């Protein structure tokens, strides 16, 4: 399942949980799923500080497992802390909103392509 606040992703894919909210809200939804036993497929954060300015973020999670995945719980918590640490001081970059939308979609597709042909 893809959890996203990016409308481009919601339009293009099924199995999407779309939220009309901020990236922080998206991360928090992911966290609540992880706490219930779902696992992260893609990392909650992107690979640069600049991408933290993005008003959009899409994260892939996996099926619910019996037990909580400690490592993933830690990763999502650390990610939220790191995100807030940066964004409490800054604002998302709204001027280039559409570019972020596109890049978020393309990065998501790169992650999906890594996951093709897998069953676990």
């Amino acid at each position, binding site marked *: 399942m893809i959890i996203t606040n990016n409308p481009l992703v919601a339009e293009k894919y099924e199995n999407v949980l779309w939220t009309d909210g901020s990236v922080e809200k998206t991360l928090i939804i992911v966290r609540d799923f992880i*706490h219930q036993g779902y696992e992260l497929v893609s990392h909650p954060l992107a690979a640069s500080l600049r991408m933290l300015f993005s008003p959009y973020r899409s994260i892939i999670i996996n099926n619910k497992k019996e037990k909580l995945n400690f490592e993933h719980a830690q990763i999502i918590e650390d990610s939220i802390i790191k995100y807030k640490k940066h964004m409490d001081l800054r604002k998302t970059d709204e001027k280039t909103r559409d570019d972020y939308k596109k890049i978020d979609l393309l990065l998501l597709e790169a992650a999906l392509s890594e996951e093709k042909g897998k069953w676990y």
Partner: protein
Amino acid sequence: MSDGFKVLYYVNQFFGQIGGEDKAGMKPEFHSEKIGPALGFEQLLKGEGKVVGTIICGDNYFNENKEESLDYILNLVKNEAPDIFVAGPAFNAGRYGVACAEISRAVAEELNIPVVTGMYIENPGLDTCKQVAYVVSTSDNAGGMRKALPAMVNITYKLGKGMEIGSPEEEGYIARGMRKTIIVEKRGSLRAVEMLIKRLKGEEFETEMPMPVFNVVQPASAIKDLSKATIALCTSGGIVPAGNPDRIQSASAQKWGKYDVSKRDALNAPDFYTTHGGYDPVYANEIPDRVAPLDILKELQKEGYIGKVHEFFYTTTGTGTSVSNAVKFGTEIGKELKEAGVDGVILTST
């Protein structure tokens, strides 16, 4: 500048030459002359700056009347408008250290005046002020005055002259916890290779990013007889009374709260809820006892399985709370529990 920069000095009743423990209750006073260490301090400034006065306050008075003392002292400092404020050194004196720390923090934060003080590394006041003041590292007793003062003077001098303060090692102060970005002679890869070679040779090397240290504590001895024991309930799950009267933050908590639960059987909704921002609050808000099981503990008390549930319940939020704050909370809560004669503690975390 004819007289150079202005320094205002703070000492306790002992260093202010008023008296010992018997005078620890004295109210804060301002003296326009230089008293105690302030005298030697000005001599060491060698005419570049001058001490315009000394504030003296009893250690007990300060600690028992913190807000009042702080108000009074801040007003004095505002009137004198020094360029630099100096307190102590307090060495390892607990109450004196806390006084120096609280005043230093208030002067630095509220009046924006640079502060220099001195303490032993284990002084309980240190954590309160080291981020905002330059705290010179001293020995644990007043015998270290002759070493401490020149270091404090040196930093004061540099602050007064608007010069850059060097590293903690160079200047002798306790690291403020600031990660300062600097340009160094050797590029990063060379430093990495040198670090690697030292590590391979088994020589000492210094990492550039020290990780927080989690030292261990010996397990305390077990409770001998549960049926006579007082058990306290603590949580980092952010369970607070309706309205969150103490405004415990939902993340990166700056404080903890304690609430009298002696007359309650449970932490039930809607009287209690969670303010914690680190998890989905639905389940905790439905039944707060799912996070902090006061109901079960009270049952065990009724059944006589345990002696008694401690009358106060302690709470804070765990998410994003800095290590130093967690240490502070633990120390403060532990002290209260010890004084209240609590025999065992249940801490729940989400």
